[in-house]
């Protein structure tokens, strides 16, 4: 539904270089990159706030590159939420509806409905100044969603929140998406947000979109060393969970707690334990693996393993590499504790 074709722009020290990607209807597309990569400028180009030097933006097949923001109908939530300080929460949320000249009763109904879903119905008479960070973020999301935009653009929506509020809102964001069914582009530097919420991820480094793909794909097969270094070499496994079992890539993995449905889990490479033969401890997931390749990284060694249809990475010390006599093509046993698994 959104096609961004070859966008370039030099803007206040940020450079976008030949950025091309597309977003499907209903998708949560995460643009992941370090600060200063040009993510915000890209959002502003899509929103129509910044004109690109070259390239086109298509929305539902229509070229919107030359349209001003008010004629694109996309909702934009900047990092500081930009709530109108001189209006109440109710007026903030109703702003877009009033511009659409909806009848008063209809506006009231829609504001109350979205406020109900987002859990801010009790705040409608407050001024933005009196809200906490998490509350302000919900109001900003409500104001954007209430106009039912084809696409919502979020710039670091969780960056200004404390850790607890953040993880709570991350969980709720998934529920809002189920209940309100929106399409979103979500810009972040947080690996966790990308894995928790993203259907697909675009990795942005120095103004270029260096890799676009499903979350599992991008994390398990970084396009190059730069992407891999930025992503931090986590092992991300996507599969179907049932109780404490996760089925993924032909493996059955024991989880630390009960979940169900499609989930993603992460295991840090330093939590992987390699051994020449099976250890057979019950508190541990253990699989036979084929060594794919070995990378030397100073005192540590990164071993790429083929396990079932998955690629996993493990860090081991140089001495254990020698001790175990690991070589590409040979088989080893790889194990990790259920408690080392992080469920996103």
């Amino acid at each position, binding site marked *: 539904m959104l096609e961004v074709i070859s966008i370039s722009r030099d803007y206040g020290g940020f450079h976008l270089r030949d950025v091309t990607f597309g977003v499907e209807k209903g998708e949560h597309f995460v643009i992941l990159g370090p600060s200063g990569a040009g993510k915000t400028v890209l959002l502003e180009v899509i929103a129509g706030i910044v004109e690109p030097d070259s390239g086109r933006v298509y929305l539902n097949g229509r070229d919107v590159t030359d349209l*001003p*923001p*008010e004629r694109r109908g996309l909702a934009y939530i*900047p990092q500081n939420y930009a709530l109108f*300080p001189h209006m109440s929460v109710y007026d903030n949320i109703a*702003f*877009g509806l009033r511009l659409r000249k909806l009848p008063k009763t209809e506006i009231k109904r829609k504001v109350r409905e979205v406020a109900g879903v987002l859990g801010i119905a009790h705040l409608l008479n407050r001024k933005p100044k009196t809200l906490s960070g998490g509350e302000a973020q919900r109001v900003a999301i409500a*104001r*954007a969603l209430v106009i039912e935009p084809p696409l919502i653009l979020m710039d670091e929506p969780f960056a200004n929140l404390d850790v607890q509020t953040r993880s709570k809102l991350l969980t709720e964001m998934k529920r809002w998406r189920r209940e309100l069914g929106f399409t979103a582009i979500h810009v972040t530097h947080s690996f966790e947000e990308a894995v928790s919420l993203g259907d697909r991820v675009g990795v942005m480094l120095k103004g270029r979109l260096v890799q676009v793909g499903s979350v599992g794909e991008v994390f398990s097969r970084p396009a190059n060393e730069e992407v891999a270094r930025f992503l931090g070499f986590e092992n991300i496994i996507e599969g179907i969970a049932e109780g404490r079992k996760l089925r993924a890539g032909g493996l059955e993995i024991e989880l630390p707690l009960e979940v169900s449905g499609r989930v993603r889990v992460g295991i840090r490479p330093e939590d992987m334990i390699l051994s020449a033969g099976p250890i057979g401890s019950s508190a541990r997931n253990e699989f036979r693996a084929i060594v794919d390749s070995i990378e030397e990284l100073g005192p540590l060694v990164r071993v790429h393993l083929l396990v079932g249809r998955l690629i996993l990475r493990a860090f081991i010390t140089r001495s254990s590499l020698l001790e175990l006599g690991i070589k590409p093509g040979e088989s080893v046993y790889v194990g990790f504790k259920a408690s080392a698994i992080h469920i996103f």
Partner: protein
Amino acid sequence: MRRDYTLYLFAALGSFLIVYIALPLAVIFLKQASDWEMLVKTLQDPAVLDAVKNSLLTATATTFIALLFGVPLGYVLARMDFPGKSVVQALVDVPIVIPHSVVGIMLLVTFSKAILDSYTGIIAAMLFVSASFTINAARDGFLAVDEGLEHVARTLGASRFRVFLSVSLPMALPSVASGSVMTWARAISEVGAILIIAYYPKTAQVLVLEYFNSYGLRAARPIAVILVAMSLTIFVLLRWLVRRGGNA
């Protein structure tokens, strides 16, 4: 611990200026109080009442004209970059550095009969010397409005003009209002340019001068007292209103 007397020293030095400003204000009221008869007589003088009315009307008209043209200009200066912007910005501040008699000569040379001895002339003189305050205050007010707010309002469907009316202007309003008060105050205190352009219709500022030249200090003082009392009252009232509005 040794006490630090720096602030006390600065306060003592600074209070010289406060006393210097407050003293003549107090003295003129006190002296007039001992000459009650003259004050009453002046208050019944139709020439004085007419002049006061003229001063109030022209200063107020000037304020509205400055708002009409100055607020849009302030917005442009806050939001747009264009070649020659620094020249425009400098030009806005120029009236502050030109002697007001010179302003009168310049305006008269340029517009001659069109402004000579008319209300238009008084307002022309006042506008020239006082518009900067509205323009600069509006610009600063708009600069303080986060551009992100305007961007969000536009993505929600508002045109630029609509954004200006519903977001930028309401938020910059306290600053615009306090600039207007300054413009009004500067306009009602203008004499130099008005003397040259429009001796008639008579304004209170000019009348003080005329009475002083023709009848001496005793005749001029009551008008001065009336002007000071009136200007101060309105100035203080407006500033109070602006400040209250700004905090709400």
